[in-house]
């Protein structure tokens, strides 16, 4: 008998692995993630490289600001690259905004001038400067210029008022907030303190992993349903159940599909590990200067992902088996695609509940509501995994949860298996709930 189960596993696995969709999810997803991670750094690098000198014209009605601004711009890291001035400031010959504006607007329109700044006489009083350019989405440049100008204007005000600039700065210092998370799971049960960067990193990782977990459970459980239905509609199932016990067949099918999913994850993890360990090589190869935040995230992933991955696998397998047996039963009950899709959509509501509530639950992972929900088997895979990600529950709770999951999976497999056994060979009218109950006890 085990040989036959192996045959079924092999078929299920091979037919899935050979599809275009599978190849796509194996390769596209990591590429997508890579792109998302690297794109900001990459774009920044590209922009710096392609930049030519951009002319910034300043109309300075005060006559005071321009020299100071030019000096600060020359030293500002955003506005210059490798000693080469990217933004070149020139002062307009006329110091009247009204006189200069029509000529400058023309020049900006033709691209001769990148942007011009209109600094009015009363800038020290009302602090308003106008920035004119074709592209006004270049927020980096604008805010750098704004900060430099503010500094100059402020200094001037200090000088006029007689206060010492340093003194005022010291008096006006605002309070900063450093956020720490305290957890009880350090070595030897010591209290551990984590920086905020780490918790927000955890949150991001949790979102991503829960998304993948949910998506894969739904997609592959659905594919089990479609598959069962296909076997029923094409009647090949009659040949199959006259060769192998329906339970064994269903068992083999689930293992085969699950193995296909795990293959995808394995490829991703290996890919991820190779990537992380050779990250600098990659950056060099593309000539990308990594942003500081990116390096921190990578260090964090390296340091803390093994445990999370193990939990991910446990909850994926539990969730997958749980939902795909339910879906298999649905496929067996239905006799047409339309029917099955309706039921499938209804069933998909269950794992969606925690995803919908996720943002709320993130804010209060310790709320009794969240804890109770996370032990209901329908929600367990996603919700418990979320809790593990956000605020590690005590180990006994995790073990209890896994035990509960396993028990439910066993029960559901037994009942669904029986419904599957009977339903797969029944055609025509959909059974009533009463009939389903009878089948389950068959």
């Amino acid at each position, binding site marked *: 008998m085990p040989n036959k189960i192996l*045959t079924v596993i092999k078929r299920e696995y091979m037919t899935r692995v050979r599809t275009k969709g599978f190849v796509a999810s194996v390769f596209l997803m990591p590429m997508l993630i890579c792109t998302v991670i690297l794109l900001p750094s990459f774009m920044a690098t590209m922009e710096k490289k392609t930049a030519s000198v951009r002319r910034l014209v300043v109309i300075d009605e005060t006559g005071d600001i321009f020299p100071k601004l030019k000096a600060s711009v020359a030293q500002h890291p955003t506005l210059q690259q490798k000693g080469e001035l990217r933004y070149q400031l020139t002062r307009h010959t006329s110091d009247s905004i009204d006189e200069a504006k029509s000529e400058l607007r023309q020049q900006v329109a033709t691209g001769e001038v990148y942007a011009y700044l209109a600094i009015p006489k009363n800038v020290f009083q009302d602090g308003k400067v106008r920035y004119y350019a074709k592209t006004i989405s270049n927020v980096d440049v604008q805010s750098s210029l704004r900060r430099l100008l503010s500094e100059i204007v402020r200094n001037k005000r200090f000088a006029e008022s007689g206060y010492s600039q340093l003194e005022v700065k010291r008096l006006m210092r605002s309070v900063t907030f450093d956020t720490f998370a305290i957890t009880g799971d350090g070595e030897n049960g010591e209290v551990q303190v984590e920086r905020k960067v780490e918790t927000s990193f955890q949150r991001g990782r949790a979102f991503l992993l829960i998304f993948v977990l949910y998506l894969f459970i739904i997609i592959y459980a659905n594919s089990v349903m479609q598959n069962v239905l296909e076997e029923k*509609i*094409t009647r*090949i199932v009659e*040949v199959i159940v*006259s*060769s192998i*016990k329906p339970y064994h067949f269903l068992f083999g099918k689930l293992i085969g599909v699950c193995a296909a999913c795990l293959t995808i994850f394995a490829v991703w993890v290996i890919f991820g590990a190779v990537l992380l360990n050779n990250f600098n090589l990659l950056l060099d190869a593309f000539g990308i200067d990594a942003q500081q935040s990116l390096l921190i995230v990578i260090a964090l992933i390296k340091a803390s992902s093994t445990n999370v991955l193990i939990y991910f696998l446990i909850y994926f397998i539990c969730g997958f088996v749980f939902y795909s047996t339910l879906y298999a039963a649905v496929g067996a009950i239905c006799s047409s695609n339309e029917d099955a899709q309706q039921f499938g959509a209804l069933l998909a509501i269950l794992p969606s509940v925690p995803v919908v509530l996720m943002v709320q639950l993130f804010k209060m992972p310790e709320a009794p509501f969240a804890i109770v929900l996370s032990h209901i088997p329908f929600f367990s895979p996603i919700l418990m995994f979320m809790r593990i990600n956000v605020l590690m529950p005590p180990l006994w709770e995790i073990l209890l949860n896994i035990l509960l999951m396993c028990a439910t999976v066993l029960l559901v497999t037994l009942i669904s298996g029986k419904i599957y056994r009977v339903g797969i*060979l029944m055609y025509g009218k959909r059974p009533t709930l009463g009939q389903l109950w009878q089948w389950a006890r068959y």
Partner: protein
Amino acid sequence: MNLLQLENVHKKFGDFTAVSDISFSIEKGSVYGLLGPNGAGKTTTLRMIMDIIAPDAGSITFSGNRQVQDFLDQIGYLPEERGLYRKMKVRDVILFIAELKGLHKQQALGEIEHWLEKMQLSEWGNKRVDELSKGMAQKIQFITTVIHKPELIILDEPFSGLDPINMTLLKDLMLELREGGSTIIFSTHVMEQVEKLCDRICLIHQGKVLLEGEIRAVKRGFGKNSVEIEYIGSLEPIRNSACIQGINDFGQYAEIKLRDPEDYRPFLQELVEKGVDVTRFELMEPTLHEIFVQSVEAHGGTVQNAE
């Protein structure tokens, strides 16, 4: 020795009695025909033999008093509704089912080539199932039924949907398989094939057995109530004879159905007395088709679909 034995098998679907008190046994190495009009309970019977549905009462046992679950690998089953995995390649799908039947891969691969060649489908082996014509898919399905050299081959309506050439091919294959020692049970309402193929038949109608036995015995038991005559002149003088139930006149030749098998003596006498110039007079065995139609009609049914 009996390979398969059904005893007092009953099956109800709700209030509808699909099979009522069916018993028969199949001798090893024989070809057994399960006949009956549509809806007679043939498919239900075969499905119960395969344990796809469970009988309400009665027993179904295989050689040596074994249950079907211990005998599965020795059975090849062709269901009434055909189907294969549509997206799989032909060779893969045959291999899958062969392995499910317990064949080892190497062994199966050899058999697949042998059978594809035999069915003249070798060049289709790497095509996907949904690229095949209906007839080709049927042949592939037949291969999957017999590839593991089963002792018992169960075919539900094997001839339906086949053209005359493929029907002959299938008939020859079935005989070949019997020569090779297989036992075959098949259901059909195509009587022509049954006469050529079967050793024994079972005629069921509305879930009940009307006739069962060796094909010659069944015919004999039914009696020779048909007469074929060749004549010169006219049949007018005897047309209203009390012995005749029906007459099919072709001019110089006629098939005459008698009211009673024993009527042939008075009928012959009448022919001579009325001066019909008869050149040939022969008692005919009834065809299975006639037996089928008569039996069913005698039990209040009508045959709508007896091609």
